[in-house]
């Protein structure tokens, strides 16, 4: 159980004027499962490697339980990294791979053997200690890599894209496994992903990073209800963005005025802003007339469990989704009332 704090953490690589990681401040309470989320090249792996000690920060500090670890070399730091491409040692058996960390610590072979069996059980791969890594599937290799990291009882477990090389079925399995291990061992875990769904499924807290800069650090649902910016909202699948002028609870748009009373909006920007609302929160033909405007259905796409509508309000396109069966009262070309519930609208700065 280790409490990790990053303060002003910065990494500039030589020859590159743009910092790969820029003044990152992050507080990761002990026993949490935190996701570093962001597009490719945003500095996730670099941050992870700095925590592991494999890259030295240009500026800033990293503390474990209040003590700076910058002077502690990676082999003594206890922040173990599981790499994206597993990196099982090809010249060792699976058991030797898992036992590697203990062997490096000079643990007795008998004890190692016992622990290896325990760990392989933990990742649900009993009886494969004598196999060679190349005889395993990708998912199995991933789990062996996890066991190899866990056997050292790390203070912090760092996972680089743990699910991205797995197919849908294996992803679910691996996700369950990571969650159960995290619950059982209570180890502080940080994992990296570029997939918001993966972050939402696994993490207690998500750190959203763009271009080396931390954008927002919050629980997963916050990114859907209260994204920090249009770009953050888009990253989580937001698609409705309407220019607006905000004064307190009142939002003026090209197609009418709306009220906004969503919790937390007090702290959102005022003045020239962008109104956003998730497609599943847009109400078609609502019962009451507050926060309503008129539009025309441009297209209707039935996706199985829900239906997606594209609606033109003036020359602005809004997307709405409705779950359940297809509604034959709403057809292409029909006029429709469109409601933006006051407690669902969100406001971000104009970009």
């Amino acid at each position, binding site marked *: 159980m280790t409490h990790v704090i990053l303060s002003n953490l910065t990494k500039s690589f030589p020859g590159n004027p743009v910092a790969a990681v820029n003044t990152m401040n992050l507080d990761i309470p002990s026993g949490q499962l935190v996701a570093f989320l962001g597009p490719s090249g945003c500095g996730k792996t670099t941050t992870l490697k700095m925590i592991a000690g494999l890259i030295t920060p240009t500026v800033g500090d990293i503390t474990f339980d209040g003590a700076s670890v910058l002077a502690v070399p990676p082999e003594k730091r206890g922040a173990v990294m599981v*790499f994206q491409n597993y*990196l099982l040692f090809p010249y060792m058996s699976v058991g030797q791979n898992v036992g590697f960390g203990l062997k490096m610590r000079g643990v007795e072979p008998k004890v190692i053997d016992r622990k290896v069996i325990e760990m392989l059980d933990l990742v649900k791969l009993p009886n494969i200690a004598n196999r060679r890594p190349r005889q395993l599937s990708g998912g199995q290799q991933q789990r062996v890599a996890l066991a190899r990291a866990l056997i050292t009882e790390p203070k912090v477990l760092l996972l680089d894209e743990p699910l991205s090389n797995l197919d849908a079925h294996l992803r679910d399995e691996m996700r369950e496994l990571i969650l159960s291990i995290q619950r059982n061992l209570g180890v502080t875990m940080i994992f990296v992903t570029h997939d918001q769904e993966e972050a939402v499924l696994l993490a207690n807290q998500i750190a959203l990073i763009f271009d080396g800069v931390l954008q927002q650090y919050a629980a997963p649902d916050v990114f859907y209800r209260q994204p920090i910016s249009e770009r953050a909202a888009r990253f989580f699948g937001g698609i409705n963005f309407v220019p607006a002028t905000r004064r307190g609870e009142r939002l003026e748009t090209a197609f009418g005025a709306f009220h906004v009373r969503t919790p937390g909006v007090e702290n959102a920007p005022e003045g020239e802003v962008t109104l956003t609302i998730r497609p599943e929160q847009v109400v078609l033909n609502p019962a009451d007339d507050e926060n309503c405007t008129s539009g025309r259905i441009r297209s209707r796409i039935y996706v199985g469990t829900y239906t997606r509508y594209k609606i033109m309000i003036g020359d602005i396109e809004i997307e709405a989704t409705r779950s359940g069966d297809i509604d034959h009262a709403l057809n292409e070309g029909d006029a429709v009332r469109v409601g933006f519930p006051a407690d669902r609208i969100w406001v971000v700065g104009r970009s």
Partner: protein
Amino acid sequence: MIGERWRIPLMLAPTLIIIVVLFFGSLGYGFLQSLGWQPNIGNTTFSLDAYATVLFSPEYREQFWSGLWLTIWVSLASTFISAALALMSALLLRQTFIGKKIATFLFQLNLPVPHLVIAIGMIFLFSQSGLAARAAAQLGMISTPNEFPVMLRDAGGVGIILAYLWKEVPFFGIVLLAILQSVGEDYEDLARSLGANRWQRFRHVILPLVMPGLLSSSIIVFAFTFGTYEVPKLLGVRFPEMLPVMALEFFLNPDLNARAEGMALSMIIAAITLLIVVAYMWAGNRAVQR
């Protein structure tokens, strides 16, 4: 219809046939000659006399056995030391530093230089009348060039080993650099995060990763140093004399009967090379598995 399974063997067949014919043809012919079979001078009977002469006759016995130990020593030392030096250099050259490109270029500079030229270069540089001796005398480190330590034409084969190192370190180097580049540093980073210190990373990560390449290039170097005569001929002494030089002298002997002895000695060289290569591979693989 020819099955898909036969496609590759068939494509390889012409090459393999040439190799087999050349290899076993020449080896077979050489073997027959070593048994005394030389129809052109009327010898058509087989005997092991040539082998006995080389191995046990008072005339050659001592030359052979002392030559054998020298050859084994020189080849093993050249192979092992150049592999070790090359590994150290490759690990250094892999890092990022100022002048890396130039250093790598210089490191590989003498790859295309023939062994003969290297040997002559050694004489030019390190003999007692060579550049180094005269420079040392000029600088007052020694009073006359003759006091320069005997590095060439010494009974221990040091000059020969030095020449081979000069030539083989870059050879091992390019092989190792290529391997290190292709595996990258992730394995070492990983091992480090799992608690491996510098020595452990070398012993349990780098060494096993480069070992297959190191072993196969070692075999090439070993077999080469065991079987060629240019360098030892130029940089060695008359006694003890490395086996390939001894074989050469049999072949240069105007007496055609000496041809059988030369061939017998060549066969012995080939057999020993094979034996040591097999042992070396076995030992290398075992060392890594532990």
